[in-house]
């Protein structure tokens, strides 16, 4: 649905996006992850036809961003980082203005506005001036304007920035509910957002691609071993020593309130571990798989990039 090939954008001498390539499949939510000034916004602006690229190609919904810009604009919904709202308009009149400039035919316009208000939960504020509604509602209006023409592709630039925690959860819920047939790219520097909302991720730093793929693919490719975290009623060095005698376990690391055990990829030795603990009466309190979390992944990818 979205294909980016060797995209480069230079502002004078500054290279904002450097030879970036990635692909997003239809019906998926992908996160564009990276530190501030990594080139996230620039990439999105190029995809939406707001900025031209210096080099490279990009296709959205089957149309070339540089050759068929107008078609791309019709097939894309875009929420910029600074939500573009006219403070003097009411929510409803703003949305009907957007419906008009997005070329929704006159007869369907009213229906589109009503439907969008419903989807984005704006019923209670539809008659109010945009300048008088809360930040959370403004963000909702921003999302509403991006999906009013029912585009197959949504591009959301930091959709949850500067919201309070309750609003963040609401907006994430809204974004997830939009998935369905749509392909969504959202940029963020909040790592938790990616694991909660996205199916895949593109990590960029200083304009360059660091990693991309579905979350499972990425975490498994970066993890060479599997493992579990266990919490026992007993603790101490001798317990750690005891645990390392379990057949198959390669590494035992004592942590604050338990131990993590690791073993080579592909072996299935969880049963050995539980049996061992029960036999030795170590008092098992908790046991959970040791997942490489997105934070570790992100840091290893970003720092890996720096070393190159």
């Amino acid at each position: 649905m979205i294909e980016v090939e060797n995209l480069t954008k230079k502002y004078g001498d500054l290279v904002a996006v450097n030879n970036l390539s990635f692909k997003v499949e239809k019906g998926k939510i992908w996160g564009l992850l990276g530190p501030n000034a990594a080139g996230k916004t620039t990439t999105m602006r190029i995809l939406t036809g707001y900025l031209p690229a210096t080099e490279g190609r990009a296709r959205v919904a089957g149309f070339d961003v540089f050759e068929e810009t107008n078609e791309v604009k019709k097939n894309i919904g875009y929420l910029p980082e600074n939500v573009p709202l006219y403070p003097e308009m009411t929510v409803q009149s703003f949305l009907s203005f957007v419906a008009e400039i997005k070329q929704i035919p006159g007869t369907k316009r009213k229906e589109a506005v009503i439907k969008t208000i419903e989807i984005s939960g704006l019923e209670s504020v539809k008659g109010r001036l945009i300048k008088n509604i809360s930040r959370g509602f403004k963000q909702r209006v921003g999302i509403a304007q991006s999906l009013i023409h029912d585009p197959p592709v949504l591009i959301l630039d930091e959709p949850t920035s500067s919201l309070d925690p309750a609003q963040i959860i609401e907006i994430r819920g809204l974004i997830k509910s939009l998935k369905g047939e749509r392909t969504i790219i959202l940029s963020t520097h909040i790592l938790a957002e990616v694991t909660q909302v996205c199916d895949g991720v593109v990590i960029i730093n200083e304009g360059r691609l660091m990693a991309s793929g579905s979350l499972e693919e990425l975490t498994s490719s970066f993890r060479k071993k599997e493992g579990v975290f266990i919490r026992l009623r007993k603790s101490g060095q001798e317990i750690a020593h005891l645990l390392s005698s379990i057949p198959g376990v390669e590494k035992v690391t004592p942590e604050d309130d338990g131990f993590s055990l690791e073993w080579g990829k592909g072996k299935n030795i969880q049963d050995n571990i539980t049996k061992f603990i029960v036999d030795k009466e170590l008092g098992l309190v908790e046991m959970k798989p040791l997942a490489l979390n997105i934070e570790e992944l992100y840091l290893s990818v970003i720092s890996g990039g720096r070393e190159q």
Partner: protein
Amino acid sequence: MRNAWTICKKEIKTYFTSPIAYVVITVFLVLVGFFFYSLIWWFNSQSLQMARNPYYYQQLNINQMVYSPLFHNISIILLLMIPLLTMRLFSEEKKIKTDELLYTSPLSVNQIILGKYFASLIVLVAMLALTGILALFTFVYGNPETAPVLNGYLGLFLVGASFMAVGIFFSSLTENQIVSAILTFGALLLFWILNWAAYSAGGFWKGVLNYLSIFQHFDDMTKGILDTTDVVYYLSFSFFGLFLTHSVIQSRRWR
């Protein structure tokens, strides 16, 4: 064209939901009314004096003595007011970042510019039409010639339209409305008085400076002369303003 009309409707709505249009139109009408009153009062007193002398009485002409100076006065008021009407057209969009919405919608830059320009012309027509109430009095109580009056209004419209185009251009340059208004005002005033420099210049440059001056072309029109050169001048002036606006917006995107 429909897209330009969408933008135009939005701009008209913005003009009349904020106080700007009301304030500008009110102040404009108060000033025009004052000039009109003074000119009519002067014309009346002249008529009374001349009434004793039938030869001079024949020479009295309301078109020359009231309308011609009135049109000049109105054009100066427009020079002061129009920068205030155009200053927000592009500056505001840039400041509140709504330009990103417009430029990522399936609209062309031309449609956006024309929409905004038409909206400003509609406000201009409203301003001029409202002064028609004053003109109506002269037709009820006197007998001015209609054609020169209409010609004068056409002149005012063309002058106003050129001013608007210059205003839109400066509005596209900056996101600060005050800066936009001041630059517009400065540029318009300079064009207005360009013919002053023509006095000292000689030969070729005299002609060029005279041709470029807004004043030279307007003067004819207030006297009831409709010259296609003048009309072409104003139309090309407006076109050039809008063309520069288009270049500014495009260059911003391609930088």
